[in-house]
């Protein structure tokens, strides 16, 4: 038993924190929040240079072959700094989907470029009637000629506007199938949505009879569930890492404010209403971190508990982040309600993460299903 970050992970963490402090300060976040594209090529390039886009890609495809936990360490720091941009989508959704479902040839074609930061990808999963339910996929993939025709609408697709390819679950005759659709495909229309959290853009992707060849099939027809599920679980854990990092920062900001803000001639942190609120944030952030480590470890090392761990983590960490960010606003008072203070970016990211990749109600239902056997 050895439940702590190892020296390499601690170094990755320190490096990431330094990088985000220097390269993506809040001025950058604010600019990108309003920016249509949502990131700069410069920052993207530097992140790729540091090897972060390559971390979880197998060495056979020019990746670093590291574990999810190593990546989670970076994502925790990204959450702490509410870093904007398509890193999560590319690495966890597009890259993750491809890595789990692709054939060797497909991986050879895409993963090395993804590892190098040359291309970006995402996952087009949600359909308009799905709501928070991740299992609802109804878009049809009609077999035609040697390939398939995709017709329908996917919504809330992260960063599709800057992606080079989409992993697209759809129903073929034999069942759930994953397709790789390149963004130049004819009949594909991507339009960004005005969302609450401007640091991770969501798009509507319309498939107006998009024709794809046999080689675009990632998982064989009817075989899409297992790899999709694995990719989603890893992505859910990745999102939890962001949540823990973001909540940690929110807690620190609130606690520091409670130490310096004077009301009634003493720091407000001396009042139990504030003190106990801060203590509760600490309890929950540390709890979430404990769950996160387990869930990240389980994806790589304990397949039998990986699904449960991912859902427990997603249900707990995402709600915890929302509670902590909201609680920080209450401690900060009027200051926390202003746009000028940074805390609202955390609340918005928290709500986005809560809703993404299966909401808490979905994951609790999943947990109950696993318990009920």
């Amino acid at each position: 038993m050895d439940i702590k970050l190892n020296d390499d992970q601690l170094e990755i963490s320190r490096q990431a924190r330094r990088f985000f402090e220097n390269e993506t300060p809040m001025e950058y976040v604010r600019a990108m929040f309003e920016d249509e594209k949502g990131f700069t090529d410069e920052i993207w390039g530097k992140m790729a240079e540091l090897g972060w886009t390559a971390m979880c890609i197998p060495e056979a495809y020019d990746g670093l072959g590291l574990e999810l936990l190593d990546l989670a360490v970076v994502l925790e720091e990204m959450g702490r700094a509410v870093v904007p941009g398509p890193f999560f989508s590319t690495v966890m959704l597009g890259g993750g989907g491809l890595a789990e479902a692709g054939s060797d040839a497909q991986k050879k074609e895409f993963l090395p470029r993804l590892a190098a930061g040359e291309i970006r990808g995402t996952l087009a999963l949600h359909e308009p009637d799905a709501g928070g339910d991740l299992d609802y996929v109804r878009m049809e993939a009609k077999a035609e000629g040697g390939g398939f025709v995709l017709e329908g609408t996917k919504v809330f697709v992260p960063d599709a506007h800057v992606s080079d390819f989409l992993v697209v679950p759809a129903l073929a005759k034999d069942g759930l199938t994953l397709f790789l659709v390149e963004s130049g495909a004819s009949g594909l229309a991507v339009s960004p949505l005005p969302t609450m959290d401007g640091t991770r853009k969501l798009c509507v992707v319309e498939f107006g009879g998009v024709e794809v060849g046999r080689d675009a099939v990632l998982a064989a027809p009817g075989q899409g569930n297992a790899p999709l599920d694995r990719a989603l679980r890893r992505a859910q854990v990745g999102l939890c890492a962001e949540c823990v990092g973001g909540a940690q920062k929110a807690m620190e900001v609130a606690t520091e404010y409670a130490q310096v803000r004077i009301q009634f001639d003493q720091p407000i942190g001396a009042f139990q209403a504030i003190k106990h609120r801060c203590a509760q944030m600490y309890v929950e952030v540390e709890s979430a971190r404990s769950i996160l480590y387990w869930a990240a470890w389980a994806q790589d090392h304990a397949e039998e508990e990986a699904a449960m761990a991912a859902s427990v983590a997603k249900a707990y960490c995402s709600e915890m982040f929302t509670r902590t960010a909201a609680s920080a606003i209450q401690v900060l008072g009027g200051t926390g309600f202003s746009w000028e203070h940074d805390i609202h970016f955390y609340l918005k990211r928290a709500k986005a993460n809560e809703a993404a990749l299966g909401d808490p109600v979905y994951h609790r239902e999943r947990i109950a299903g696993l318990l009920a056997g």
Partner: protein
Amino acid sequence: MDYRFSPEEEAFRQEFISWLDDNLPEGWDPSRYQNYPRDDELAAAYRAFQKRLFDAGYAGMHYPKEYGGQGRGLVHEVIVMQTLANQCLELRIPGVITFGMAAPTILYCGNEEQKSTYIPRILDGTHIWCQGFSEPNAGSDVVNVSTRAVRDGDHYIVNGQKVWTSYAHLADYCILLVRTDPDAKKHRGLSYLLLDMKLPGVEIRPIKQITGDADFNEVYMEDVRVPVSMRVGEEGDGWRIAITTLMFERVLGDATMAAAYERNIERMTQMASRVRRGGKPVIENPVFRQQLAQAYVEVMVLKYHGLRNLSHQLQGGIPGPEGSIGKLLWSEPNQRITEAALAMQGPGGQVMRGSPWSIQDGFWQYAFLRAKGNTIEAGTSEIQRNIIGERVLGLPKDSSRAARQ
């Protein structure tokens, strides 16, 4: 016991509802949560609509006729307020401080000249008022006011800074709490002024909130000369005036919120019938049905607690510190209700207004963010619970605050 309006009151209500049907501003669209996204348009619409109410005899129902009011009772005022909150809350927003704080303070504590000058112009929509109480170091510790007013002949010279002054950029006047005696104990050295926002030395800077709007402002005052005739009450009497007059109007505020929230429950029910989850309307999902019902329960608590308080006051009861309950009953539930609404929408809850994919024009997204201020503004939840614990239940102050007295 009787929860019903009297036949006369009910007739008045029906009459007002049908008047309102014909008199909402041109192009008013009840399905939009904001008909006037721009503040200046909203202020203009408010003024015009208030004038229309005034001309029709629906402004200031419980204000004396001599100041332009209708000389009726509080019930009639509640009927008007609730109906407006239910039908066109947006149009009332620029008047929240004007009617909730400025007008009653002037009416109950102002002198004859102040009353006859300002109340008619409030009632007919000419003037919008804002409130200058909060300061950077006077948040929950409200009496920690450091804006100074120094007497200079028949003027005060005012210097200082106020924050969270809602609609200051639209307002004509401001109710201002200032320190006239720096040597007196904290709350004793305060006085209450009426400030003309167009006076030289008044500078307004907007504060953008987490919603992206800028409803609030910082107000800087540099050597602003306010005539002594603009002081309400005696010098040093500012704190007493600030806290007591408000209590009488609180029932109106609670009733307004209850009416607005009832409307929101209808909105939520419609939304849950349209939005789908796993292919089925959310309203068919037992988990979210519980949340919808709980939201309704909390609104009913606000409504019927408010009515009980109103009735108490109608019968001559004096509102006291237990009024803090009302503040807690509209602020905290609103956070839970808007959270529940977003939860029902799943990832669709991320979409703000302005897209074909927006749900109900982005109403709940705005409401969720705005609600985060509810437990902070107008006295934080912590302060309300202090008031109830200490002034209603008689629990002792903590020793640090006790030592200040």
